[in-house]
């Protein structure tokens, strides 16, 4: 939809577009400039983080900032010298495995809520949503005690389970709204041909719902990658995730600004890349599929 809206005006300008353009005139140009200024202002801290990360510690800690200081990758070198790899791998494991689990579970749940719905399917749907609205911190202590009891503390598979549960409600909602768009006629035709559920899933539903699955996976990945409270309490040296590593990183004495900025940038890159690549899917996911 944005495609049609942002189509270049004037190239094949149809007559009706004319009067609008005239009315916008100079005021429109000024508002465009304002939008640019706002955009740059919001982006600036991110740019500053990257810019600082490419400086030496001395150059990063000057006041006023030294804009002409030579660029260096020392910050990144020092960050990777502290061996963040186990933490990054933990984060990747927890995010990717939990996202995969979520997508599979939500796909089947979505089928039972949208395509061949159970009775009171909307109540079930709202039950999923309510679980997301209760603050997770209230369940932290029992989870800690149980994990301690069964020896799952500081184990990355505990985080996989928790992140799956954390993201499942969002995913079920999104999957429901995507699967509700699968045309009934196609499903009936498939049923008449005698196709069974796994076949219908693979041949009919997956191709139609794949953009929705991508959106769901994106959101779940971002939330799992970002999570810190549970990881901080439930993991330690073995299963620590990247955000936990990042907080422990600052206690170093002396100048550390460039190094921290390098670490913050490095850890944010997977999310930034995923989010930029799928901007339109972000809204859908964040609003639990209510906004298309």
């Amino acid at each position, binding site marked *: 939809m944005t495609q049609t809206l942002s189509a270049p005006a004037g190239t094949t300008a149809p007559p009706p577009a004319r009067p609008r353009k005239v009315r916008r005139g100079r005021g429109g140009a000024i508002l465009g400039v304002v939008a640019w200024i706002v955009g740059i202002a919001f982006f600036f801290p991110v740019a500053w983080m990257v810019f600082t990360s490419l400086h030496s510690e001395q150059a990063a800690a000057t006041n006023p900032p030294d804009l002409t200081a030579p660029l260096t990758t020392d910050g990144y070198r020092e960050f990777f010298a502290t061996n963040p790899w186990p933490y990054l791998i933990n984060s990747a494991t927890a995010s990717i495995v939990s996202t995969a689990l979520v997508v599979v579970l939500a796909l089947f749940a979505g089928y039972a809520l949208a395509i061949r719905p159970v009775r009171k399917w909307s109540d079930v749907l709202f039950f999923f949503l309510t679980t997301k609205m*209760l603050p997770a911190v209230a369940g932290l202590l029992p*989870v800690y005690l149980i994990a301690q009891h069964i020896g799952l503390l500081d184990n990355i598979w505990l985080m996989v389970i928790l992140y799956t549960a954390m993201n499942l409600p969002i995913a079920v909602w999104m999957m429901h709204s995507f699967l509700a768009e699968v045309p009934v006629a196609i499903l009936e035709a498939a049923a008449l041909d005698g196709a069974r559920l796994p076949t219908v899933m693979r041949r009919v539903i997956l191709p139609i719902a794949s953009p929705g699955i991508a959106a769901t996976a994106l959101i779940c990945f971002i939330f799992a990658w970002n999570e810190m409270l549970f990881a901080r309490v439930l993991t330690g040296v073995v299963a620590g995730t990247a955000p936990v590593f990042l907080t422990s990183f600052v206690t170093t004495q002396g100048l550390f600004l460039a190094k921290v900025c390098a670490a913050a940038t490095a850890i944010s890159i997977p999310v930034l890349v995923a989010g930029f690549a799928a901007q339109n899917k972000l809204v859908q996911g964040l609003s639990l599929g209510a906004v298309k």
Partner: protein
Amino acid sequence: MTTVSLPAPAGVRPRRAAGRWARRGPLLPALLFTIVVTQLPFLATLVISFTDWNALYPDRRGFAAFGNYTAVLGDPQLRSSILTTVVLTVSVVLVSLVLGLAIALLLDRRFHGRAIVRTMLIAPFLVVPVAAALLWKHALYNPEYGLFNGILTGVFGQGAAQPDWISDAPMFSVVSSLVWQWTPFMMLILLAGLQSRSPEVLEAARVDGAGAFAVFRHITLPHLRQYLELGALLGCIYIVQNFDAVFTITAGGLGTANLPYTIYQTFYQAHDYGRASAAGVIVVIGSMIVATFALRVVSSLLKQEADR
């Protein structure tokens, strides 16, 4: 469309029940998983909240009745953290909603490089929350080498004021960093709302000679109402739970300890399991009240989607 009842042989009881379970089958794994992992802990929290249980004194465990609740509600620190949570949540949601609306209106127009501006605006939301909090604390707020004071020195020379942002205005510091992260979220939802206005109605209003303000007041704003509500309620849900910013920027000091942080502290450092659970139950009750409204808004939006 939801009643696609396949021609099941009617009247045969067992077959029918089997059909019902065939329908439920695909749903059960997700449902059971969610109940076991997310709901049972709350139940445990409720039970623990009625016990006297401090991990540092394991032999003194016992039934506390409402002891933890009176202790929690009587503790000025915990009471102030309830207030802090409300202030933090409301101010972040309101400011980012207003800013988000203004920016969405700017982006709903055609101008050169709109896609680039939109991409730049989304960036703050895509920085890992802990990383964003560290960025604000060390690279922007730091009184000696932070960017804000650096700009002050750069503009006003060496004698410029050098405020210690976080100590002087702790709440403002936390709120600003969160507003920066959440404005893009509000903007995205409201922009989607603006773009779902019917072009015919807008064109008709324009043909009838309605000015830009009249269109905004009588068409855009009523249409956006649901999206504003949705943004506000989702924002509340996420920001009530905020831990990363409070933990990183002020470490809960200077009157910025919100409920998640205080519960974390009570449990993780004071090891008072009973009280931490009682505080948790109070948060859950508060959230349920907010959630009731949220559900109503979401369901009305969904109905609209279905009608379309």
